[in-house]
């Protein structure tokens, strides 16, 4: 079986090459009648974006299926359950609800008959962001690799799991077949942006690749498409931070995405609240702001926000719930929850629904909706760096608080990921002063 592995830094076109290579294989006749390409991702967001990428490529003519590793594993373990042995089951007893099916699926894939069963539908597997695979999901890929053609891509430095040793994983990927190294960054041609990202990746002092500029007593470090600055900010006073953000947005063309490693940071929250509403006036009388923006929330946060507006009785009949929720059914998740409740009444005779069950239905509806990619967003956005993984935006502002946690290496990976999301311009604003000579912006000072 062939195994193509694309390795390269952020923006070097891993996904582009990955999809292109898969397209070549398909055009060379890699898929038989009624067979499909199976694209496996770690998270739903990536799955959705990959789905859109594959749909654009005429080589596939819709002959592909994008699934997360978890969904693939859950389905495989459920459908081939008659082959699950007590030993396999015992191995997963201590695992959580997401890892257990992955481990079971990996064990099942050790069986040649199961692998062939998968191959008959999916002879070609595509895996993007392979650096995120943990031991269970890697075992799935290793099983599939024995029988399927694989195309995979990874950048070790973009693994955002603090403390995970990615060396064995990358070692296996590099040894599994043909490795294609991608070196040319294609996301941007902005030299300052490229140089800053490379310095962070290599653990050098970012400031050394930038030019210092002092204005009104405040210093910033600049390059083409890149700016690094700090801003004094405390709980009591976040005005300067808010101004810095708004001032930066004012200088950009198009929408801006604000990234932070800690979306719960109170100073950042307060500053962004100000940016939402406040207008500033320059000395020359010109005004800028306000800049309304939305948090690109995690499904759970969206669900929490939705559910706080509803008071559910402990137990309710379908009719009660319909009366209560129909006014809110403009929200797709609520409408789906209602139809699911109705289905349970009609197909299973369930007459009473506990509040917890209804709540869970709404949460799942929100998760499914984001899984299917129905959510719409426009304008400026704010989100965590984790959520921005694998995405690209024209302009990025990174807000780096004191509360960013993790090892120096982990922080550098986070910062690198944030910077490399930008296609055109990135501004990094560090909260507080005197932090620019320490990781992730510079090597740990030697004393």
């Amino acid at each position, binding site marked *: 079986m062939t195994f193509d592995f694309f390795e390269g830094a952020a923006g070097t076109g891993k996904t582009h090459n990955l999809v292109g290579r898969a397209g070549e294989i398909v055009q060379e006749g890699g898929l038989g009648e*009624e067979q499909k390409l199976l694209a496996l991702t770690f998270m739903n967001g990536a799955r959705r974006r990959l789905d859109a990428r594959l749909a654009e490529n005429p080589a596939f003519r819709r002959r592909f299926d994008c699934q997360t590793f978890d969904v693939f594993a859950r389905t495989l373990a459920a459908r081939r359950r008659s082959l699950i042995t007590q030993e396999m089951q015992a191995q997963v007893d201590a695992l959580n609800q997401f890892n257990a099916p992955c481990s079971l699926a990996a064990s099942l894939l050790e069986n040649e*008959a199961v692998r062939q*069963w998968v191959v*008959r539908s999916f002879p070609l597997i595509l895996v993007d962001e392979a650096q995120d695979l943990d031991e269970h999901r890697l075992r799935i890929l290793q099983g599939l690799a024995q029988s399927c053609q694989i195309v995979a891509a990874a950048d070790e430095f973009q693994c955002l799991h603090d403390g995970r040793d990615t060396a064995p994983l990358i070692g296996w990927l590099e040894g599994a077949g043909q490795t294609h190294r991608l070196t040319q960054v294609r996301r941007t041609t902005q030299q300052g942006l490229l140089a800053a990202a490379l310095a962070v990746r290599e653990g050098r002092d970012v400031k050394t690749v930038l030019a210092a500029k002092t204005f009104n007593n405040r210093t910033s470090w600049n390059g083409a498409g890149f700016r690094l600055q700090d801003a004094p900010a405390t709980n009591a006073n976040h005005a300067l931070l808010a101004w810095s953000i708004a001032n930066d947005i004012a200088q950009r063309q198009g929408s801006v995405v604000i990234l932070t490693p800690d979306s719960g940071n109170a100073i950042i929250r307060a500053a962004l609240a100000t940016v939402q509403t406040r207008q500033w006036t320059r000395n020359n009388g010109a005004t800028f702001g306000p800049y309304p923006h939305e948090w690109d929330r995690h499904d759970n946060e969206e669900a929490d926000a939705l559910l706080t507006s509803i008071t559910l009785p402990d137990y309710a009949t379908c009719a009660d719930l319909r009366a209560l929720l129909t006014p809110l059914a403009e929200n797709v998740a609520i409408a789906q929850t209602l139809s699911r409740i109705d289905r349970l009444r009609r197909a299973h005779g369930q007459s009473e629904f506990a509040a917890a069950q209804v709540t869970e239905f709404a949460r799942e509806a929100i998760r499914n909706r984001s899984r299917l990619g129905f959510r719409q967003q426009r304008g400026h956005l704010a989100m965590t760096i984790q959520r921005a993984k694998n995405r690209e935006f024209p302009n990025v502002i990174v807000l780096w608080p004191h509360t960013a946690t993790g090892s120096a290496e982990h922080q550098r990976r986070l910062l690198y990921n944030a910077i490399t999301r930008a296609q055109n311009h990135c501004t990094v604003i560090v909260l507080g002063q005197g932090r620019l000579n320490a990781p992730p912006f510079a090597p740990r000072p030697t004393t």
Partner: protein
Amino acid sequence: MHVVGLNISGFRGVHSANIALGRHTVLVGPNNSGKTTIIEALALLFGRDRLVRRLTEHDFHGSAPNEAARILCIATVTGFVPNDPQHHPSWFSAERGVEKWFDPAAKTLSAAPGAQHTDLAAQIGFAARFDLDELEAETIRFFVDDEATLGDPFAEDAHLRTIHTKVLQELGFFLVPASRTWDRWISFSSELFRRVVATRGDMPAQAVRAERQRLWTPPEGTRLELQPGLSEIVNAANDELRALMASAPRLQLRLTSTDSDSVLESVVPHFVQGAGPTLPSQRQGAGLVSLQSLLLLMQFGKARAETDQSFVLAVEEPELHIQPSQQKRLVNRLNALCSQTIVTTHSPIVAAMFPAPDTLFIETRDGALSAKPLMDPMPAQPTNHQQHLLYAWRQRLVAALMHESVLIPEGVSDVAWLEALQTALELHQGWQDAGDDAPLLSTFVGIVPTIDAKIADTFALVNAVHARPCILVDGDADGRSYFDAVKTSNPPPRCVVFWPQGWAMEHLVSWIAGADEAAMLAALGAALGTPIANAQALTIHLLTQKSYAPTHESTAVILMGNAACRARAAQLLNALCAVLREPASANTPLFMRIAADSTADMHVFQFAPPP
């Protein structure tokens, strides 16, 4: 490919059923035993959607489905060529079904192949629920991944892969229902006909298009709307229309809807016999039409066989409208042509054409359907008597087993006497007898031919397939020993009848003659060519003629010609029938319960002639 197993639950009268099917299986059983339910379950699984769309409340067990009520049928299919899932991706893949391995001897499935589990198998499920809001059934056909842990197919987390009709067509299932409208078979409203045309040849497209054109614009002078009588009505209508609509539409009358589909739909088969007139098929005798139509079916089977495709045919009552010689040829042809045939029948002739292990006796009690093979496995060395029953007497055996209760008498002459008396009695029935005194024995009780003294052998065979076997023995030491030989069987005979102490069947005949003794002795003396002094002498004479059928027949005819004897015989046979049918609750002065020998499952009686 063929179906080796079928599980049914919640469908019609069947709460649960588990049936093993052979390559050529015949389903035998009384009316309402569940034969049609089995055939229709197969149609739900493998047939076209038409039947599925007709599901109503009455198709759910109990006829009043609630939200949780389900119809669930699961079939196991084997016979994949080659025997390797790699060659059947439309059945076995991550987007289709899960392969299983079948043990043809033990008829069990395993998830992995093994020494016994050698045959690649697929499991197909059909499930239905009734929606009480929409008042219609929701159905699903799917691949069964793991039957033991299937759960509710309508559950949210069921992970089911639905099965495409195209895949099912590989099996080539076709159902010929009992309610067949033969005359419509060779027409384009028949799905079978269309399928045969599609597989054997091309649509006669040019002829159809020409006919459509002709119907659209009929030649001048033949247009209906211009004919005298019609034209006035049509013109009046046109005048009205002109006043109402600006486009002034004109009425024209055309045969058919003038598209090719309705031309095809309106084709009606006609037959010509010799130089006779061309007659539409509904004017023909039913036999000719059914034969012609079955030939068509065979064309379809042949077409599939020639291209190595399988053809599974389920036929209800192939004997309908066809004389016995044709039945035989037809069934043999079907069995030879099809990968699998599943036949229901009420004809012992048809039933006897199938091997004993594939002759399934169907019975449904309290919703549990059982399908028991006549003999499975066939013993390596069946006893002489069993061979006799299974080969020489197969038809009579099967005919007896089709009854609600089965009676095993002690010997050949007992069988002969019972049959002679019943036949003679029924021949003398008048219209007034349809009530309480109507002879019921032949309707409800089948009498198994039994070689003298082979009760135990016969009982073992019958007991394996029939839930209500009974025995009838003489009132002597031998009779007692036959009873002793079977009473410990599991289950024991449901009912045991002893003749009185020292009596055999011939004593019964004398007792019947005793209803009008003087007249009967004279008549019988004349008929049998030997003077008979008294009842005892009659018994003794009859005992010397035990295996001489003409004696049985002429004696029975003479006795049943006499009203008093007839009344006595009817009283006896109906009392016997009552005891055999409902031994637990039977209450007749003619048969006395022997409490000492009876148990909860076995009711023992002795005939007690009224003084």
